[in-house]
């Protein structure tokens, strides 16, 4: 064993597993056979977890954050209520997370996904693909344009419908911050009937996934704005290492 006096890499705050969904949530039936039955093994964070891929802004195409146009034929655009979704990616200490890749995907205005395994009778929109991405600015901010997705029925219990939602995938600075979640819309009554929403154990947790309608940021005669902040795991700084301001 070669012990050194190197400073350990600064780790992330422990994940609050009581705040996050359990693996086994029988009201969401697919989780029954897809949930580990043994306890997770707690391990110290190493370089393998505190590092992670960081993507450059040069990977983005000019329409990557505009779902109304990025799959549309020239001169056309997707059908549905036009929206802007904006917010910040923050860590638990409240700091903006810069250069975070945020990917999102969603159904069209009628609740239909462009996917070969999807068989819902609502039609596809020929001008809507349903995927987009962006990278956060220095202050952690991001934004994209889309159309309001529709609710859709799914085979779980006899009559389950997903609320309107947008899926989000976020890369922070370390692989331990990797997160996939879903954003819901203020005022949707389906939120409180959904067995997938219901896996989140605390009501405040569910509220944190509901985007607020923001009339001040709404562009008149164009698109309504929704604000959605995303929080990734916080990080301890190693004092004096690279953040002189400390934590």
């Amino acid at each position: 064993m070669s012990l050194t006096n190197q400073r350990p890499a600064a780790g992330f705050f422990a994940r609050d597993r009581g705040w996050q969904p359990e693996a086994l949530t029988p009201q969401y039936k697919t989780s029954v056979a897809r949930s580990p039955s043994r306890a997770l093994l707690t391990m110290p964070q190493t370089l393998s977890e505190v590092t992670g891929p960081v993507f450059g802004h040069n990977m983005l195409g000019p329409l990557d954050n505009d779902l109304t146009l990025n799959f549309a034929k020239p001169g056309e655009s997707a059908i549905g209520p036009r929206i802007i979704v904006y917010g910040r990616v923050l860590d638990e200490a409240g700091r903006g997370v810069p250069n975070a890749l945020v990917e999102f995907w969603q159904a069209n205005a009628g609740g239909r996904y462009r996917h070969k395994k999807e068989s819902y009778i609502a039609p596809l929109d020929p001008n809507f693909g349903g995927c987009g991405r962006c990278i956060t600015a220095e202050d952690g901010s991001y934004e994209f344009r889309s159309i309001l997705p529709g609710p859709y029925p799914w085979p779980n219990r006899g009559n389950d419908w997903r609320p309107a939602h947008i899926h989000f995938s976020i890369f922070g600075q370390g692989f331990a911050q990797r997160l996939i979640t879903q954003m819901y819309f203020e005022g949707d009554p389906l939120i409180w009937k959904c067995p997938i929403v219901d896996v989140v154990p605390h009501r405040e947790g569910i509220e944190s996934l509901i985007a607020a309608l923001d009339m001040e940021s709404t562009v008149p005669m164009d698109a309504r704005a929704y604000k959605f902040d995303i929080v990734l795991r916080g990080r301890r700084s190693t004092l004096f290492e690279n953040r002189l301001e400390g934590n």
Partner: protein
Amino acid sequence: MQSLYRLKESPSQTAGPYVHIGCVPNFCGIGGVYEEDLGTSMVNEKTKGERIKVSGTVYDGTGTPLKDALIEIWQADADGLYPSPEETRGTADPNFTGFGRKAGDYQTGEWVFETVKPGAVPFPDGRMMAPHITLWIVARGINIGLQTRMYFPDEAEANAKDPILTRIEHQNRVPTLIAEKTGDGAYRFDIYLQGENETVFFDI
């Protein structure tokens, strides 16, 4: 007393059955939006190190393959350096991304990564960890991404001293983290979500 003013992490939600639309759109037939799906190519002709192929399938508690899982991997380069801004020990191979992302095949559920064998990386106390690949698994029915590691069967000596493998109380579960060698530079790493031979998943 002062407040700590901490926020809570956003709750995770399942990636759902249509995760492909957002994460691998070209794979699911949504062409023309992105040039290439993110994480498709990890290496190029100049990448240093031994080329390897890692394949596997994720199985549910009934033994059925998941045909809608998305697997991401993160690993060091051949010299054990991470291509990350957080890497302070040197500069990683500029021709290696360290990050891969693959969806399971729609019919069989199998996924395949073309990469290089990673070098050893130190544990926080300076001991070396055995070469390993970190995996993150999401799918319909998985409420929060599952984290595990793949180790190499031809690194028995290093595995026997690995600071993570040796701390597992139930040593009979260690083999679930060790891939099977199926050919020259070819490894198979099947993942069992639940039941007999359940893969060890980590809370990191």
